[in-house]
């Protein structure tokens, strides 16, 4: 018997109860992340991928609320935890990295203050111990002369350097899981490559699992083990990266892959998915993608059941590509 996965999200529903109506930001999403595994969570803007990440951290603010589903982390259901128990896990066993490195560090506090604070929020250690851990963390993310950097303020760093610091803060308590919310989107390509390499290396070395939230399939292709595609707050398709990207079954996944510019199709117009992401307010039952889907039929007005068309592949579609 294999050991249970590190994180198992089952049927997660997170809704915002606004004056205009209920926004189903996350609607019946399930995925698992094994220890040391890297999961790519893919979707367009507003597909609920970030909200899924926030749900796992228990950081949903009113009017948002988790209405259904389980988040099993190392055997315990996070949705049943009280605030104090959440705090022991958050930042300690599950860490997060944000999209914009310009904003994620506090501009008025020095780097050492911010990392030491992160350490001492979860471990009863002296300032000196915390400081040496901070230094180690900076070295691990490839920052040269860490002692000098520790005494600097965020504005003295470039975007890439700041994101490295943010990653160091996430790593400093040796979490089991890191949720990264598009951390390389704001960086230029060479820095993005470096950060990806650094993250992959660090996760492999320390056995940290990673959920990489992104809209960029090319990043996922090189980084993740598994991929989970979301659309309009709903689960679309999941499976091993190589498998899903080579043989996408859901028309939406195929559309996403076709939208990526490729060398093989130079000069020809790019494929695009027609139409726009539907408003989450007016979303009825049935497949959310049917309005934009070429293979949609009358059947798609009902909710497609979750299927396992191949080992380790999961899918919600009535008309999967073979």
């Amino acid at each position, binding site marked *: 018997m294999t050991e249970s996965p590190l994180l198992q999200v089952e049927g997660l529903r997170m809704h915002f109860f606004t004056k205009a109506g209920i926004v189903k930001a996350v609607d019946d999403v399930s995925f698992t992340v094994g220890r040391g595994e890297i999961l790519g969570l893919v979707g367009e803007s507003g597909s609920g991928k970030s909200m899924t990440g926030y749900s796992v*951290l228990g*950081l949903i603010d*009113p009017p948002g609320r988790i209405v259904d589903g389980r988040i099993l982390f190392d055997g315990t259901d996070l949705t049943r935890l009280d605030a104090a128990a*959440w*705090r*022991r*896990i*958050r*930042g*300690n066993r599950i*860490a*997060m990295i*944000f*999209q*914009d490195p310009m*904003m*994620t*560090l*506090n*501009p*008025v*506090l020095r780097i050492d203050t911010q990392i030491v*604070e*992160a350490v001492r*929020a*979860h471990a009863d250690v002296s300032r000196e111990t915390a400081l040496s851990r901070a230094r180690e963390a900076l070295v691990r993310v490839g920052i040269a002369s860490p002692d000098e950097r520790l005494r*600097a303020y965020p*504005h*003295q760093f*470039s975007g890439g350097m700041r994101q490295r610091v*943010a990653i160091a*803060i996430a790593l400093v308590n040796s979490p089991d899981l890191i949720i990264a919310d598009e951390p390389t989107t704001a960086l230029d390509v060479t820095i993005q490559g470096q950060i990806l390499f650094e993250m992959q290396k660090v996760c492999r070395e320390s056995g940290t699992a990673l959920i990489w939230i992104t809209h960029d399939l090319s990043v996922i292709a090189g980084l993740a083990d598994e991929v989970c595609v979301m659309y309009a707050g709903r689960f679309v398709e999941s499976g091993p990266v190589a498998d899903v990207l080579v043989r996408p079954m859901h028309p939406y996944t195929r559309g996403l892959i076709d939208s990526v510019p490729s060398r093989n199709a130079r000069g020809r117009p790019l494929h695009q998915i027609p139409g726009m992401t539907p408003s989450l307010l007016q979303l009825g039952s049935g497949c959310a993608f049917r309005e934009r889907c070429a293979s949609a039929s009358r059947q798609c007005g009902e909710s497609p059941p979750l299927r396992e068309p191949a080992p380790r592949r999961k899918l919600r579609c009535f008309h999967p590509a073979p």
Partner: protein
Amino acid sequence: MSYSSDGPWARFRADFAESRLAMIGLALLTMVIVIGLLAPVISPQNPYDLAQLDVMDSKLAPGENSAEGKTYWLGTDDQGRDMLSGIFYGLRISLGVGIASTVLALAAGLVLGLVAAYFGGWVDTLIMRIVDIQLSFPAILIALILLAVLGQGVDKIVIALVTVQWAYYARTVRSAALVERQKEYIEAARVLALKQGRIVFRHLLPNCLPPLIVVATVQVAHAIALEATLSFLGLGLPITEPSLGLLISNGFQYLLSGKYWISFYPGLALLLTIMAINLVADQLRDVLNPRLRK
């Protein structure tokens, strides 16, 4: 790599010094503060000690000598009080009351405004409605009512000024904090599961300070003016410990009979003090506002 070789403090000083007017204001303000601090040392006379006053010397014009041959450079008031000493001591009281009430009002407004912005919901509604009610009354009216109930005294007038002023700070802090709260570093602090108090006071507060510094400097001037007004109306401080407002009020009745100095010099001192503070505050606003920075 480093953004600027000479730290933020040096840059701040250089920016501030760009305006000559502000430097004059700063020099004036420094002088006024030094005078206020050293009043007991540099005053020719203790104006609070009635034994030192001689009614025979009352209403002497500036530069006139007393019977003992002492020169009153700014003249004396109707009780024979040396105006120069009176102004020095008056500045001490005015500045003290202005700064003390500003610091206390700032602290109260800061905490309430931050709490309102950070926690939101009914806490925010409750605090901000109180602020709205408070700000819908003229400051002088609230202060008058409070002093009528509390009576006279330095502590009473500070209480009145704090009550009048805290709402400005609460509103300023809240609007700054609402913007800062949306920024990712606050989210990042929450992800680290830092304690609420730590997030509010360590992370949120310092980022809300620049607008507050500006409001606070302007409000010191307002507080001093308001205190002078209240004293002028006879509601602020006891007549034995005159502040600038009371000195002006004392001389008011002699103004038309040609004895201008009893009101004029305290008024000038008040004017210069408030002007100096406003000059400094204006330049602070320009320096601390990144949008106005060249």
